[in-house]
């Protein structure tokens, strides 16, 4: 039940925030904070209850489950479950949700209630994606999270918001439909083998498929997740959507929505189609490496501060793609760590960019420079985040990238070596950011207030998390471990071990 409440609290909170908006904007902000806080407390309780090496009596790595019949004639259930991976992603979502409500405290002044409604519903959809273990339900949440995000970009975004919002929606919805076709193909293949219709993840694991069919179905899933991640040929929606979205939208997009793509790869693509994924792995890993380098190069070439951060996301998530398809425990641990670390640092970077834009009304780095003098606290935070983003040892991103490379080295030396070049490129664009914005000669005279207490509290919390996970990443690794090692075992055995569970 606790899993259902995780989603319901946000849905109800969103409605209340909308209703409260017209009375006073502050009310809807506080309602949103409260519901996210309650949710975070629930998720933490779940985590503490089942810490590290989760070993449940049911025999699987599952912390909690819930199953209700939904469309019985098709074998569709309302099936929620959580393992370490789901819980990590849930907590990341909620932390960034709180950060984005606080970040938009002064930025969003119009239609505040509707804004928070969309924010919370989008987060609720994302939680659903992380918790759904019925493929129909998964697809349902996958689509549900898009519409509110579309409104966030289209209504509160910057100059070219309509274009960016429509592009975002078309890319993600279109790729999602191919995933739906693949889901249906899998279900019918399972039906012809066993005679029962089911959309349940655990029943579909280990379905026997003809090799060419498995490849096509795998590609259907991969396409949807690669667009969301984004992997390189499908990335073009990302710079536009991230740049034009309001700060909260960018934080959620980068920190959370992109992670649904990575999560999908780990949870669905490889376990459901192990052989096809194995055959496809060289291509996918190569796409990951191309993403790392291409994203870093384009980030370096930007004048628009927000676009720089957006392209750096493409580069960082290339590591995730590389790690997932290397498909060994080290690389997967690295990919999960990278997901969490990227969520925290890039989320914080987008908040910083949003704060700068709110003060200067521009994102053009050509007009900035020497902002450190005007805003020393902002400068210090910016320097820290840039350094974290480039992967300085002792910070969370380093752990993720290092583990990923360690794992992928065992699979492909040339690709790993090439990916390492991306770390150098990351250093370049991160330092360029600091140089152009905070150091150098002042190009224009800016009078701007420094980061306030609220923003500093958000930043320091995120920074503390990044340092903590960089120095002592074991909590994340331990939490993810049972889920990942279960995913690594051959699917037939997974199906058997959870088949006993009710």
């Amino acid at each position, binding site marked *: 039940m606790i899993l259902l409440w995780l989603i319901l609290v946000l849905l109800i909170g969103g409605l209340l925030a909308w209703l409260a908006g017209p009375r006073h904007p502050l009310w809807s902000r506080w309602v949103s904070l409260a519901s996210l806080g309650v949710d975070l407390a629930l998720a933490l309780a779940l985590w503490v209850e089942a810490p590290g090496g989760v070993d449940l009596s049911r025999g699987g790595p599952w912390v909690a489950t819930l199953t209700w*019949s*939904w*469309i*019985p*004639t*098709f074998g569709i259930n309302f099936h929620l479950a959580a393992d370490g991976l789901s819980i990590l992603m849930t907590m990341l979502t909620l932390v960034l949700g709180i950060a984005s409500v606080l970040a938009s405290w002064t930025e969003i002044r119009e239609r505040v209630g509707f804004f928070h409604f969309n924010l919370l519903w989008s987060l609720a959809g994302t939680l659903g994606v992380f918790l759904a273990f019925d493929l*129909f339900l998964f697809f*349902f949440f996958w*689509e*549900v999270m*898009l*519409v509110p995000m*579309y*409104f966030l970009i*289209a*209504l509160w975004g910057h100059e070219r918001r*309509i274009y960016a*919002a*429509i592009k975002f*929606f*078309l890319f993600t*919805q*279109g790729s999602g*439909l*191919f995933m*739906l*076709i693949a889901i*249906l*193909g899998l*279900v*019918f293949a399972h039906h012809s083998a066993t005679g029962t219709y089911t959309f349940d993840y655990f029943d579909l694991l280990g379905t026997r498929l003809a090799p060419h069919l498995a490849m096509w179905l795998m590609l259907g899933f991969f396409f949807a997740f690669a667009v969301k991640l984004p992997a390189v040929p499908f990335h073009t929606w990302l710079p536009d959507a991230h740049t034009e979205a309001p700060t909260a939208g960018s934080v959620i997009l980068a920190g959370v929505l992109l992670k649904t793509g990575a999560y999908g790869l780990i949870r669905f693509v490889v376990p459901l189609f192990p052989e096809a994924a194995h055959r496809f792995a060289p291509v996918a890993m190569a796409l990951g490496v191309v993403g790392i380098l291409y994203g870093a190069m384009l980030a370096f070439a930007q004048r628009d501060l927000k676009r720089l951060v957006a392209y750096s996301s493409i580069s960082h998530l290339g590591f995730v793609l590389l790690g997932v398809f290397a498909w060994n425990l080290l690389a997967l641990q690295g990919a999960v760590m990278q997901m969490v670390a990227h969520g925290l640092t890039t989320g914080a970077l987008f908040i910083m960019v949003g704060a700068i834009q709110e003060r200067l009304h521009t994102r053009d780095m050509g007009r900035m420079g020497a902002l450190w003098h005007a805003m020393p606290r902002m400068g210090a935070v910016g320097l820290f985040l840039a350094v974290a983003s480039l992967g300085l040892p002792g910070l969370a991103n380093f752990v993720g990238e290092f583990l990923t490379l360690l794992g992928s080295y065992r699979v492909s030396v040339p690709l790993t070596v090439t990916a390492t070049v991306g770390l150098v490129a990351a250093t370049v664009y991160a330092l360029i950011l600091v140089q152009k914005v905070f150091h150098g000669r002042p190009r224009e005279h800016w009078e701007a207030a420094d980061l306030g207490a609220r923003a500093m509290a958000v930043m320091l919390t995120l920074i503390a998390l990044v340092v903590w996970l960089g120095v002592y990443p074991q909590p994340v690794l331990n939490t993810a471990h049972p889920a990942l090692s279960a995913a690594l075992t051959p699917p037939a055995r997974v199906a058997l071990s959870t088949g006993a569970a009710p």
Partner: protein
Amino acid sequence: MSAPDLIALLPLIVLTATAVAVMLVAAFRRRHALVAGLTLAGLLGTLAALFAAAGVAPRGVTPLLVVDGYTLFYSGLILAAAAVVTVLTYGYLDRQPGRREEMYVLLLAATLGAVVLVASRHFASFFLGMELLSVSLFAMIAYPLGRRRSLEASLKYLILAGVASALLLFGMALVYNQLGTLAFPALGALLASFRAADNLYLLAGIALVTVGIGFKISLVPFHLWTPDVYEGAPAPVTAYLATVSKGAMFALLLRYFLHTGAYGAPALMVMFAVLAIASMLAGNLLALLQNNVKRILAYSSIAHMGYLLVAFMAGGVLGVVAVSYYLAAYFVMTLGAFGVVSVLSGPGGEADTDHISDYQGLFWRRPWLAGVFTVMLLALAGVPLTMGFVGKFYALAAGVGAALWWPVIVLAVGSVIGLFYYLRIIVALFQAAPRQATTGTTRAQITPVPLGGGLALLALTAVLVWLGIFPAYLVDFIHATAAAVL
């Protein structure tokens, strides 16, 4: 004719009696509210009569009609849609000049034709029902006599529907010439033994019948009348045309194919695949070029008929369930979308409030109405939490289950293109309201919304969301009714 026969026909009898009663009342007392109320009561009475008929179903009444679960399901759908259209029409006509009462007689007659269509199992009743529906529609489309667009639309519909009827009749004649019967079940038995695929006349006959139906449900390339007629007809009539007329024809097409076993002819299936792909692509692509909401919805309805054809081609239990659910969803979404247009269309004028710029910024003036419109458009685009999503899911499932890979892929691509023009309208709804130098507001923002229409729209939205989240109720019901035709 025995008592159970009469009970089975009770819905048709009540409907006919209502039409006559409304006509007589209108002849003696011209009061709009009275006539509209009587019409609504008659439609609701007919809906109630369906329950009586359900007691004796399944039952064949005369060689022409059959009253089974399938008939009752579609009759219910048609009558409910007609009731919604009646409410919308009342609000719409109440602010138009001229005589209003005859519209309801036409509406009832057309509904009678539609119910006959879904109950027919014989070419004769098929043709009768179709003509009853079409002839009433000619007059309904041209009802605002002062409008040139409406007259033009009516004329276009008249001529093309006439051509379609001629093709249909010729096809029926060819089939009769070869097989010597006009009843669907007998046709099925003969076809099974006949190896239809080898007989060119028979195949041509079935194909011509299909073309006639294709005109009515506006498949590409028989769709040319659709945008003009949708645009020219008064908004409630457009809603009626898009839902009741097309839905009844589609239900008949499905029954005709299931009863006659025409699924066995591969040539016909190829023809349907081509029609479906062409409809999905052309409908969605042409909708991109439009700036008129009614025309956009016209092209989108062409695409939706293509999606329906994918489910139709799949056949079997899943195909029938998919078609039925999708049609129910399509009824709700389309009535909702045209309902918004119709409650916003003000008195007089040469056209309805149907240009996309009329809707700019509507959300900030009329959040409820714009919210309803947004939900309807998202449902048409197939976004979850609505019936549109479940419908599209079922259509895709049926297609994948029957391994119709090309139509399924085109369905997915078409949906993406479709999303673009639905989003265009939604974007307009949420944009900042335009500041016009002359009036300061658009027509959509000042027209008062009739109470009945507003309530009907809220009810449609509630149904759309409720059955979108909990589709099992409807799906189980459809499963039960589908058994009748399989």
